[in-house]
C-alpha cells in the first residue's frame, strides 16, 4: 500500500511549492566565481580587513586545499564544484543606519514577506535584529541599549575592524581551521556573520537574533558566528533562516563558535528553513554547518534546533564540556520531506568532572526523504561522575522515507553513566482512531500527534521564537500534518 492510499494529504504535501521562494531584486556587488589566493585577497580588501585576518584566511585556504570532502554521512548528492561558487556578494549600496526606517524599502518588503517584520519584532518582542542579507549586515538595532550594558553585538566584519583583539583571541579557538573540510573552507572565505560579547556578570536583557538569507543566485554563503560569554553572564541567541527558490544548488557552510566562560550560560536556538529543492529533488540548499561550544567550569550551553529545510543537512552542534560541572544540552526536531536528506545530531565531549549532558532528538521523515541522527557521547578518563542521557526518536510518515540512528558512545571512565535509547515508529492507528472518533479531521489529528511528539523540544525554544518555529513546522508538514 502506498503512502497516498493511506493519506491523500501526504501527496499534497510532497508536491507543495516552497512558500518562501522569491527573490529580492537588489543590485549585488559580486566578485567572479572561483577560489584562489587572489579571491581571498580581494574579499578581504573589500571588507577592509587588517593584515592578520588576511593571513589567517590564506593559511586556512592552504589547509583546505590539502583536505578531502567527507563522505561518511548518510547522504547522497552530486559533489560540488568549488570553483563555480561566487565567494562574495554584497548589496551595492551599503547603508550605515541607526534606525530601521532607513532600510532599503525593497529589503523591508522581503522581511515582510518572510513574516518577520522587524518593527514588530522590535515592538512586541524586544529583540535586537541583526539582519544579514547576502553576507553583509545592513541593519542593526538596539545597539545603544546593549552598549549601555557593555554588550557587543555586531556583524563579524565590524567586529574584526573594531574589536580585533577579542576576535583574534577567540576566532578558531573552538572550531579550529582544520577541524573539517567545511570549517577550513569557511575560515578561508567567510564573508560575514555575527559577533557577540557579553561582559562578566551581565545578563543580556533581550534575545539576540540574526536572520540569514541566501539571495543572489549561485552565491555561497559562509557565515561565521562567534559568541563569547564572559564569567557569570547569560545570553540567549536566536538564529533563523529562509532562502528563496533556486534551481542550482547553493552551498551554505557556516561556522558557529561559542565560548562559555566560568558559570556563564548560552542558549542558542535555530530555526532552519533553507530551500529544500522541488519535488524531484532539484535545487535546494546544501547546509554543511559546524557548530560547537566550549564550556568552562559550571558553564552551560544549550542548543535547540528546528530543522525543516535544506536539500542536504550536515550539522552537529556540539559541546566540549571542559570545565568541571559544566552542562551541555541538545534539543532537536528535524523534519524532512520530498527528497530531503538530513544527517544531523550532536557531539558531547565530557572532559571535566561531574559534567552533564542531555540529548533529545526527534526526527520526522515524510515523502521520499532520509533522516539520520548521528551523535557522539564521549566520556574521557578524567570525566568522573559524568552523566549523559540521550533519546532519539524517529517518526515515519511514509513507506518511502527512511529514518536512521547512528549513535557513537565512547566511555573511558568507570564512574560515568551513559544512557541511550532510540525508537522508530509511525503514527499509531489507535491514536488516529481515538482522535477521529472525537470529531477531529485527519489533518488535525496528525497535527496534534506530531506536535505532541515534538513538544519536548519546541518547549525549549524561547517564547519569542516558538511562534515562528510552530509556523515553520506547520508549513513544512502542511497537508500531511497540520
Amino acid at each position: 500500500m502506498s503512502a497516498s492510499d493511506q493519506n491523500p494529504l501526504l501527496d499534497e504535501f510532497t508536491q507543495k511549492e516552497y512558500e518562501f521562494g522569491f527573490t529580492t531584486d537588489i543590485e549585488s556587488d559580486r566578485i567572479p566565481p572561483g577560489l584562489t589566493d587572489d579571491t581571498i585577497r580581494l574579499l578581504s580588501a573589500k571588507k577592509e580587513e587588517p593584515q592578520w585576518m588576511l593571513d589567517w584566511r590564506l593559511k586556512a585556504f592552504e589547509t583546505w586545499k590539502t583536505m578531502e570532502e567527507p563522505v561518511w554521512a548518510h547522504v547522497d548528492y552530486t559533489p560540488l564544484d568549488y570553483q563555480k561558487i561566487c565567494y562574495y556578494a554584497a548589496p551595492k549600496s551599503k547603508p550605515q543606519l541607526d534606525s530601521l526606517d532607513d532600510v532599503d524599502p525593497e529589503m523591508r518588503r522581503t522581511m515582510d514577506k518572510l513574516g518577520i517584520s522587524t518593527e514588530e519584532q522590535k515592538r512586541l518582542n524586544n529583540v535586537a535584529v541583526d539582519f544579514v542579507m547576502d553576507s553583509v549586515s545592513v541593519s542593526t538595532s538596539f545597539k545603544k541599549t546593549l552598549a549601555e550594558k557593555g554588550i557587543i553585538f555586531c556583524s563579524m566584519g565590524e567586529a574584526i575592524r573594531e574589536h580585533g583583539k577579542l576576535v583574534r583571541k577567540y576566532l578558531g579557538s573552538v572550531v579550529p581551521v582544520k577541524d573539517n573540510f567545511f570549517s577550513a573552507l569557511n575560515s578561508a572565505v567567510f564573508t560575514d556573520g555575527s559577533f557577540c560579547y557579553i561582559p562578566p556578570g551581565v545578563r543580556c536583557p533581550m534575545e539576540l537574533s540574526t536572520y540569514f538569507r541566501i539571495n543572489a543566485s549561485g552565491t555561497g554563503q559562509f557565515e561565521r558566528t562567534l559568541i563569547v560569554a564572559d564569567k557569570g553572564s547569560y545570553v540567549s541567541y536566536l538564529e533563523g533562516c529562509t532562502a528563496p527558490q533556486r534551481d542550482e544548488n547553493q552551498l551554505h557552510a557556516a561556522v558557529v563558535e561559542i565560548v562559555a566562560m566560568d558559570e556563564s550560560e548560552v542558549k542558542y536556538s535555530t530555526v532552519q528553513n533553507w530551500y529544500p529543492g522541488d519535488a524531484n529533488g532539484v535545487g535546494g540548499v546544501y547546509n554543511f554547518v559546524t557548530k560547537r561550544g566550549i564550556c568552562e567550569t559550571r558553564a552551560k550551553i544549550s542548543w535547540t534546533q528546528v530543522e525543516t529545510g535544506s536539500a542536504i543537512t550536515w550539522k552537529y552542534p556540539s559541546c566540549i564540556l571542559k570545565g568541571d560541572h559544566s552542562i551541555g544540552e541538545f534539543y532537536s526536531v528535524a523534519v524532512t520531506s520530498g527528497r530531503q536528506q538530513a544527517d544531523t545530531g550532536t557531539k558531547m565531549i565530557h572532559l571535566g568532572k561531574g559534567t552533564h549532558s542531555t540529548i533529545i532528538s526527534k526526527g520526522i521523515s515524510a515523502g521520499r526523504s532520509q533522516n539520520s541522527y548521528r551523535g557522539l557521547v564521549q566520556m574521557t578518563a578524567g570525566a568522573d561522575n559524568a552523566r549523559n542521557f540521550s533519546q532519539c526518536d524517529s517518526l515515519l510518515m511514509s513507506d518511502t522515507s527512511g529514518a536512521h540512528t547512528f549513535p557513537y558512545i565512547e566511555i573511558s571512565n568507570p564512574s560515568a553513566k551513559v544512557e541511550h535509547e532510540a525508537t522508530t515508529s509511525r503514527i499509531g492507528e489507535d491514536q488516529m482512531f481515538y482522535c477521529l472518533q472525537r470529531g477531529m479531521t485527519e489533518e488535525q489529528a496528525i497535527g496534534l500527534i506530531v506536535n505532541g511528539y515534538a513538544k519536548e523540544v519546541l518547549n525549549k525554544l524561547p517564547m519569542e521564537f516558538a511562534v515562528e518555529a510552530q509556523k515553520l513546522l506547520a508549513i513544512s508538514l502542511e497537508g500531511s500534518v497540520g
Partner: protein
Amino acid sequence: MLATKEDRGVKVAAWAAEATGRTNPDFAGLTFPTSRDERWRYTRASNMLGRAMHPATAPGSAPAQRPLPNLDAHRLVFVDGHFMAALSTGVTLDGAYIGTWGESIKANPGLLKTWGRGAFADKEWFAALQAEGSQDGACIYVPKGVDISSKPIVVEHHLSGAGIAAHPRNIVCLEAGAKAEVLLWTSASAEADGLMNLAFDARVDEKAELKLEFVQDEAGQSAHVSHLHLTQAADSKIEVHTATARAHWLRNDLHIEQIGERANATFHGCFAPGDGQFTDHHTRIDHAMPDGTSSELYKGLAFKGGKAVFNGKIKVHQDAQRIEAFQKNSNILLERGATIYAKPELEIYADDVRCSHGCTTGQFDEEAVFYLRSRGMPEAAARRLLTQAFMAESIVGLRPEAREHVEALFLERIHA
C-alpha cells in the same frame, strides 16, 4: 606519503601470503582495514602484521582438557585447521550428514560453487584472507523435516602453538522444517600467538530451526577474527548465543539476513576484556521481508586496561513492513583504565515498524554493594554476585554446562 602507503601495501601482501600459505592471495581490491574504515574505527588490526604466522602443515596436539567432557554430543574436532578423526564422532543419521567440509567437497565438488567464497569475502579484507587460506571445518547438512536437535553437535577449533594461522571454514545447511543445535567452541593454547580466522555460513530454510552456541575460550596471545553469516527463510527460527569468555584480541562479525517472511532471530552475546585485552563484536541484522522479528542483547564488562567495542546494526529494508526489532546493549566499566565503545545503529526504510535500541554504560550500584555488605557478605563476594546477576541475562540461552564454564571464567577475573 604515497610511498608509505605503497610500502604498507607490500608489507601487508607479504604477510598475507605467508599467513595463507599462498603466493598471491586475491583480495578483490580490498585493502587492509584501518581506523579510517567506519567498521574498523575503534579496532587496530595492524599489530597482527608484526607477527609472522603461517598455516600448520600438520595438526599440533589437541587440548588435554576438552570442552564439556560430560555432554552427550556428536563431536567434530579440528586442530590448527586440520580434522582430528580420532577425536571426532561424525555420523550420518536419518539422512543428516555430520562431517567435514573437506570430505564433503571431495565427494561433491558442486558444493564449492554453491557456497562460494562466503558472504563477506568481497566486503571484508579478513574474510577474503579467510577465503584464500580456507581450511577444513564442520559441514552439517540436515534434510527436509529431520530433527536432530536432541543431541547437540560440538564443533571444536583449537590453535595448538606459536606462529600458527588457522582459517577453518564451517557450513551448516538446514532444509525446510529441519532442526539442529550446534555448539561452536574455539580454544587456543597458552603459547598460541597467531590467528584464528574462522568462517561460519548457515542456510536455514522454511520453518527450520537452528540454535547456535558460540563459546570463545582462548588462552595465549592469539588473535581471533570470525565471520558468521546466517540466512533464514520464511517462518524459520535462529538463535545465536555468543560468549567471549577469554580472548586476547578478538573481532566477531555476525550477520543475519532474513530473506523470508515471518522469520525470527534471537542473538545474545557477552564479553569481558581484562588487562591488555580487546574484544570487538559487530552484529548486523537485515530484515528484507515483512513480518520478521529480532531480539538482540549484548552485555559487556570491562576491567582495567581492557577495551571493548560493540556495534549493532538493524536494517529494515523498504517494503519489509510490520518488523519488530529490538536491541539492547549494557556495559559496565569495573575499573579505571577500561574503555567501551558502543555504536547501536538503526537504518530503517519501512514505516510500519516497531524498532528500538537501548544502550547503557555505567557501573555497579554502590548502594547494592553496600546492601549486601551490610548483610555480612564480604565485598569480593558481593561484587561477584552482582556480576553474576548482570551477566545472567546474556548467557541464559547457553546450555547449563557451557554457561557454568563461561560464568566461572568471568568470576575468576572478578576475584583477581
